[in-house]
């Protein structure tokens, strides 16, 4: 039985006849390998992620994360181990949440293979909270957890309907708008970040209007924004109610948020102001390097990405302005499964890692924006500037946005809905030349099919 992802013909055979020539050595060598393999398999019986104690008798707390949390890189594990000599921290990291989350669900079902701390992405937190709350420690009841340290909307995201809080907030992604001053200037738009923010303050529709202005006099080969799906994401995230109403009913087909945001995206496509790109695609990276779009809706965690992809050529070009309306994109939570081997130590560590001081340190080193309101007022955050973005006061810009982000009503299928609207509906119109009706119907069909039992 094979479980390979590359399921093109795995094996081929050939018209073989025997070959003389003895290779006894090979045979015995292979047999030895086999024996060694079985031995190794048996020898590791005591191992595994959650043995709980290390060889030197320390309690091992394992932390399962996806992508970068930066705890290791920022030296937080070392610091904690120094503060707590009996503890050793071990991180299990998977790059893509698409690999990480299904594995986590599998591990939860089987009650095995779980790390003591499991990170959960905001797109999955509602599902985890409402479908699996019995499998996680209630963080609200953990000793010394101070609810008021977090931004209220962040705290509530991990709250199940039964009131249990399954995770502590790590970072958030308040959105700003990153823009290229050189292109804005050529198109006759203002370049100062205050003036730019003024262009669209208060309304995403104004962002699209600015796009129309830009396109009237756009430098050749450039677009105003990278992708219509990015615009949709920014706009829809600025509403409290989008796909689900407060009773948990699926209302995306008639919600104001979805309708308005969809229309804006369509308007942008029709105005030919988008670069027709798919975010995080290879071509998106290349478009940064070639400077072919003038603005992108960007949370703090994207700044490093833009810097990396735009390179020295874009060094004096980029700046960041306040968004039309505050909205959040991304962020995560630390949870502790009930079946964690070292549950108590895990809760302590999760608490410490998400405390304001640590969040501030993480922001300094890794640009993960704090979800702790206390951390936001610490100087390390409040006074932060970003050199690549012309010393933009990112601490101030994003903190302002963070404080006004609405407590969004989340639902279990948010991610699925967003993905299908973006990668099916909008993409069909933007890249495949279909009409908005066709695009919308295609997305709805797919979503209905997926959410139906």
């Amino acid at each position, binding site marked *: *039985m*094979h*479980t*390979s*992802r590359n*399921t093109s013909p*795995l094996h*081929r*055979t050939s*018209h*073989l*006849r*025997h*070959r*003389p*020539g*003895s*290779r*006894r050595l*090979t*045979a*015995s060598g*292979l*047999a030895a*390998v*086999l024996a*060694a*393999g*079985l031995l*190794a*398999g048996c020898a*590791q019986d005591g*191992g*595994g*992620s959650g043995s709980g104690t290390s060889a030197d008798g320390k309690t091992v707390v394992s932390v399962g994360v996806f*992508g*970068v949390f930066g705890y290791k890189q920022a030296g937080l594990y070392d610091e904690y181990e120094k503060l707590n000599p009996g503890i050793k921290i071990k*991180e299990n*990291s*998977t*790059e*893509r949440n698409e690999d990480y989350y*299904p594995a986590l669900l*599998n*591990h939860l*079902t*089987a009650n*095995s*293979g779980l*790390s003591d701390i499991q990170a959960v992405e905001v797109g999955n937190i509602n599902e985890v909270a409402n479908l699996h709350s019995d499998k996680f420690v209630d963080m609200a009841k953990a000793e010394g957890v101070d609810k008021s340290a977090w931004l209220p909307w962040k705290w509530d995201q991990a709250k199940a309907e039964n009131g249990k809080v399954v995770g502590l907030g790590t970072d958030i992604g308040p959105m700003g708008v990153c823009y290229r001053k050189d292109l804005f200037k050529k198109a006759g738009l203002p370049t100062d970040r205050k003036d730019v923010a003024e262009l669209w303050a208060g309304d995403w529709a104004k962002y699209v209007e600015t796009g129309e202005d830009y396109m009237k006099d756009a430098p050749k080969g450039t677009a105003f924004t990278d992708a219509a799906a990015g615009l949709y994401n920014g706009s829809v995230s600025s509403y409290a109610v989008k796909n689900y109403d407060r009773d948990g009913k699926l209302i995306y087909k008639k919600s104001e948020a979805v309708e308005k945001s969809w229309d804006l995206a369509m308007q942008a496509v029709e105005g030919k102001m988008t670069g027709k790109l798919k975010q995080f695609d290879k071509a998106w990276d*290349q478009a*940064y*390097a*070639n400077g072919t779009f003038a603005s992108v809706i960007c949370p703090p965690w994207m700044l*490093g*990405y833009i810097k*990396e*992809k735009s*390179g020295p050529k874009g060094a004096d070009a980029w700046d960041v302005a306040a968004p039309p309306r505050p909205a959040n994109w991304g962020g995560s939570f630390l949870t502790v499964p009930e079946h964690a081997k070292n549950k108590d130590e895990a809760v302590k560590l999760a608490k410490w890692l998400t405390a304001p001081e640590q969040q501030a340190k993480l922001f300094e080193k890794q*640009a993960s924006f704090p979800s702790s309101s206390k951390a936001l007022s610490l100087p390390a955050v409040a006074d932060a500037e970003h050199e690549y973005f012309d010393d933009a006061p990112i601490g101030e810009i994003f903190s302002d946005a963070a404080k006004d982000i609405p407590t969004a009503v989340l639902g279990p299928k948010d991610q699925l809905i967003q993905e299908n609207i973006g990668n099916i509906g909008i993409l069909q119109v933007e890249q495949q030349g279909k009409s908005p009706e066709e695009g919308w119907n295609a997305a709805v069909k797919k979503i209905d099919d997926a959410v139906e039992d």
Partner: protein
Amino acid sequence: MREVGTVQTDTRDQTPEPLTGPGAAQGAPAPGEGPSGGRGGRTATTKRAGTAGRHLHAGRLTYAVLSLFTLGSLFPLVWTAIAASRDNQRLAETPPPFWFGSNLIPNMTTAWNDANMGKALLNTFVVAGTVAVSTVVFATLAGYAFAKLRFRARNALLLTVIGTMMVPPQLSVVPLYMAVAKLEWANQLQAVILPLMVSAFGVFFMRQYLVNALPTELIEAARVDGAHSLRVVWHIVFPVARPAMAVLGMLTFVMAWNEFFWPVIALTQDNPTVQVALTGLGRGYIPDESVIMAGAFLGTLPLLIAFALFGKQIVGGIMQGAVKG
């Protein structure tokens, strides 16, 4: 697994020159009396068949076409190395780089350290090696039975084996994980090894090979002399099957080496295989593609080295195996 142990022990008892195929068929000493003969016939057979009849010399056009395909085959791999030798930022630029930069070693070092590569390579070697050996041994036994022995329900069982090749692999992961979890094998190598120990394809492959390659008279002769079936397997079937075993072993090794979907779920970064370790690479809000490519290159490198070292034998195994005896 007991069978495997037997194999290992028997290896030592094995006399140096096992019987080999049709060349040794005529007038070969019965295997029961010890396989000491057959040497002369064997070499002669190879010689004649290896060179005879490949009548036509290749023209320039042939070389041109083959060189073109060589370029095509090597390009993605070479480009992986080129990408691994650059930095993340350069990779976003257009046109993409076509020659090596200076970052190969640093990127590979980063990949090695970040991805727990030392352990991963060792683990993968253990997994792929075990899987390859067991698949080959079990497949040869079963393939031989299906090809040359008569027993009830043989056809039905063979069709069952072939049918199992058609099961899409993605779904088995869920029930398999539940089983593995029950056995408390999560994050242990046997969770990855045991499900791969046998392969329907391998059985079918060996069966098809042995149907043609193993002369029935050879077995008959041995059986007439009262050789026990294990003796027949050891002294006749295995030697005849060796080239096919080598090919199957290589295929299985590469397959197990690149196995992804299941190990990612069954193992963690604590105790990874190469493919699992690579998922932890270049992570972050700014995935470092040059490091990811360096990891991919590192993960393929051992296979390449094996090809370079044993390529002649492996490919030779296919070719010479094809020779008409």
